[in-house]
């Protein structure tokens, strides 16, 4: 990476940082001041504006892992491996946020931290799969083997999602459906102010994803560069 390219990158990421900051400021104002408190659920319902965007972001991140894994196996370029790695890390973080904010809301509303409902179960399994994906990356030395193995798992893992979805859905329909879950859906018709707040929050989180991606990818590339320079130094002595 030469100096000019770095400067150009800096300019782009500055723009991204500022727009993310503005979007998050707007989202915070909307969530804590603008949107009215939900009548039946009370103030705890506001966690939804973090919960839903986090869920969207983690699924989006896992999809990016899938695409980048295919592209890596196809083109064999280190670039795609870095993208897949960065995206998986972000996805796991936001998936964890989903699993944390969910029980916070569920405890007062459902009266239980956790229910073995289809959506909860599949999110948990998804979290496990991608945590294992990150573990796999620590298990082999850096290089083409690690990238290839991770890419295979990225593909296999994402293809598993429809199977998980249907199996836990059918698994649960044999039991009485917990009727609380219907309260949660967007389908019931939300108040326009709530919808707007959710939209702003979604935008802010999506911008955050690209910001984090940029930082993480740059970090990984610099690491590669440092590795290379160290190796050159060792060999030149």
């Amino acid at each position, binding site marked *: 990476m030469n100096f000019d390219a770095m400067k150009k990158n800096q300019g782009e990421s500055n723009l991204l940082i500022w727009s993310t900051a503005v979007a998050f400021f707007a989202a915070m104002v909307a969530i804590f001041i603008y949107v009215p408190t939900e009548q039946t659920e009370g103030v705890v319902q506001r966690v939804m504006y973090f919960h839903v965007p986090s869920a969207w972001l983690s699924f989006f991140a896992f999809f990016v892992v899938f695409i980048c894994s295919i592209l890596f*196996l196809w083109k064999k370029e280190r670039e795609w491996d870095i993208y897949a790695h960065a995206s998986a890390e972000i996805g796991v973080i936001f998936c964890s946020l989903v699993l944390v904010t969910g029980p916070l809301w569920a405890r007062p509303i459902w009266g239980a931290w956790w229910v073995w409902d289809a959506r909860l179960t599949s999110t948990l*399994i998804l979290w*496990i*799969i991608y945590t*294992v994906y990150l*573990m*796999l990356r620590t*298990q*082999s030395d850096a290089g083409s*083997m690690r990238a*290839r*193995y991770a*890419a*295979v*798992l990225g*593909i*296999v*893992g994402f*293809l*598993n999602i429809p*199977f*998980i979805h*249907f*199996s*836990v859905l*059918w*698994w649960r329909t*044999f039991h009485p459906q917990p009727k609380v879950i219907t309260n949660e859906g967007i389908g019931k018709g939300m108040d326009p102010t709530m919808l707007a707040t959710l939209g702003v929050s979604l935008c802010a989180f999506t911008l955050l994803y690209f910001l984090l991606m940029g930082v993480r990818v740059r970090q990984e590339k610099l690491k590669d560069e440092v590795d290379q320079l160290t190796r050159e130094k060792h060999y030149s002595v």
Partner: protein
Amino acid sequence: MNLFLSQVAAIAWKDFVTELKSRELFGAMFIFALLVILIFIFSINLSVVKASEVGPGILWAAFLFSGTLGLNRSFMLEQENGCLMGLMLAPADRTVIYFGKLISNFIFLSIMELFILPLFMIFFNIDILEHLLPLLFVIFLGTLGFCALGTLLSSLASNLKYREIMLPVLLYPLLVPIVIAVVRMTGQALNGTPLSGMMNWIGLTVSFDIIYIGVSIMTIDHILEE
């Protein structure tokens, strides 16, 4: 095509001959499956819960746990003395290695399951002979899916630092859908539901099997690459 089949058969045959000579794996798998069933029986009270409700889950837990022993060995064995390199140097496609290993894993596990089933029938007091054909069909589909994904991940895990630990950790979360499906189907088959009554589960399992065999064919080249 004929060449392909004979190459696959040669690799599977090699595994059988090794096993016949050493007799290490099969006994361990069988005893381990038996132990898993015993441990579960200790943890539940069969006079309170209905055996046909908990039985399928326990049966499949035993199959999967002992099947993992077989999978772990499948490629680890080849790591010794550089046998894997020898296999890869052979003038054959990489998919041949995958299918050979898939077949030997599948047959080892199937034989073990055939030995476990009568014991399951005795321990849980469930008459499986009544619905034997649907039951065997369900077990066939489940075992095939387990081996399809398991063989792929076993080839991958054999090169990792902590291979014995990593294989189950990699494999079990991905197996969740097929485990739910086969446990449901086994329960229904034992209750006398005909196969037509569980078409959604069969569809899920069959597509799981097909998709993961397909993915393995496409990705095995990238795993077995030196």
